């Protein structure tokens, strides 16, 4: 058993991935869980070292969470992995855990890194399970709403459209995306008007339905519509304000409004 684990480790090193990721991708999730259980029994410290490997993906970690919770390995985990478990505990058991207190502290670099790791290494496996998707959503929302991290906006936009294509639940992600509150982010949605996937185009139109040229429905050509939307955004973004409206309130929420000339004058925007 030990030799097999060592062999996986060597092959993983060659492919620059953690051994658990390597096992999951080559032999499946069940084999990975079995390898983890064997490694815990053989040497929990070495198992923790393998888990704490920087190249471990959130997908693999998520798939091992039940086994990790059953073991006594928690104190040996990195802060990043401990935070990931705490986020899950908070959502799953709806408890007021350490997570909520950390969210109060906007300077928690480790927590920020945890959420970023979850999203960056997990988003390509979106759809793995409802619980997994929920955790990705939470990581994205925390990054956008609590840490105001705009570096993840493109990834979240891609996640929204990819999940929508497969019919998954997107509203929390969309809400988190808009909650970032910067109208410049609308360019990411507008770019989908030229997508080769018709579902992307339809969703982009729905999300941008507050823009007059989109709402009018007059433009049938997507390229023309895209250029019209870009032109409208360029003219109006300096004067737009986030309203906070979401799909929970309306079938056609208006997330941004253009400030009136009077309000622009009063706010020194003219």
């Amino acid at each position: 058993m030990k030799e097999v684990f060592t062999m996986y480790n060597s092959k993983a090193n060659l492919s620059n991935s953690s051994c658990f990721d390597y096992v999951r991708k080559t032999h499946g999730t069940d084999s990975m869980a079995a390898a983890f259980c064997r490694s815990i029994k053989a040497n929990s410290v070495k198992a923790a070292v393998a888990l704490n490997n920087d190249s471990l993906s959130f997908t693999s970690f998520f798939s091992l969470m039940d086994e990790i919770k059953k073991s006594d390995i928690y104190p040996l985990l990195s802060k990043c992995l401990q935070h990931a478990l705490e986020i899950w505990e908070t959502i799953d058991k709806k408890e007021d855990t350490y997570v909520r207190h950390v969210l109060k502290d906007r300077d928690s670099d480790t927590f920020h890194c945890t959420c970023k790791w979850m999203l960056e290494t997990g988003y390509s496996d979106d759809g793995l399970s409802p619980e997994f998707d929920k955790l990705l959503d939470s990581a994205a929302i925390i990054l956008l709403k609590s840490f105001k991290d705009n570096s993840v906006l493109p990834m979240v936009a891609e996640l929204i459209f990819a999940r929508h294509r497969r019919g998954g639940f997107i509203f929390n992600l969309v809400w988190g995306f808009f909650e970032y509150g910067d109208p410049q982010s609308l360019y990411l949605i507008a770019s989908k008007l030229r997508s080769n996937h018709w579902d992307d185009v339809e969703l982009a139109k729905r999300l941008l339905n507050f823009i007059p040229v989109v709402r009018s429905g007059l433009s049938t050509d997507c390229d023309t519509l895209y250029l019209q939307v870009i032109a409208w955004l360029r003219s109006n973004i300096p004067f737009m304000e986030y309203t906070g409206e979401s799909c929970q309130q309306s079938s056609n929420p208006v997330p941004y409004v253009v400030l009136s000339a009077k309000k622009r004058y009063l706010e020194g925007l003219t």
Partner: protein
Amino acid sequence: MITISGSVPDPSLLLKYPPGSVKRLITDILHSSSKEYGYRSLKEFEFELQLRDSIIHASIDLFRSRFSFKDFHDSICNEKYWERTDEGGFLSHAHVKPYDAINDIYINSYMYGTECATAIVVVYYKAVADTFPEQRFNELFPRIYLMDWQYTNNRLGITLDRRPHDYLPGDCRYFKNPDVDPLTPQWQGENVIDLGFGNYYGHGIGIARPEIIIEALNQHRSPGSETSAYLMDMVTQLGFKQLAALI
């Protein structure tokens, strides 16, 4: 002000409904408003009163049922009548009568769970089902997809007024929780039905006065936040006149 066929109705209309009743309250609000509420006929006016009354009864009945609060990831429904979609919504089966599917939510309420906006849409469909003849309801709404405000049938005529002149029992209002805890986005706000007399029904909170609903939402704020939830001015309504023409 109320006008029916372009004329102010006989004052006896205003006294037709007993004091303390929802229909009397609605009539009083419309009559005393500075805005003109015009109806093509007495029948159209009475239809709106009846449908608003049905909305309130549907709200109270849903509150009293075992219909549970769940976010879209965990929503549940009776698969005999509904298909639960990947995004957590409920689509009525093509082979079942929509009237039966909507009523099943009330009959077997313990088998259903979703969030607040979808609950309001359930209330709306139930109210319409209770007001329309069964066959007509099935003709107008052959397939129903319950997924908050998305995919509602155009025949319901649902509209959003961000600056309404008056607030009436049967209207849907919205309490916003601007500083919601990012781990509980389902509590970013609460859709409620105005039951009249200062009470509101919101799925997940219950029947309560505004301050109680605000207090409940404030329990789900980001740690350390002191930004309170609040009741927004906006109103969502069924298209009463549109539906009156369809009955």
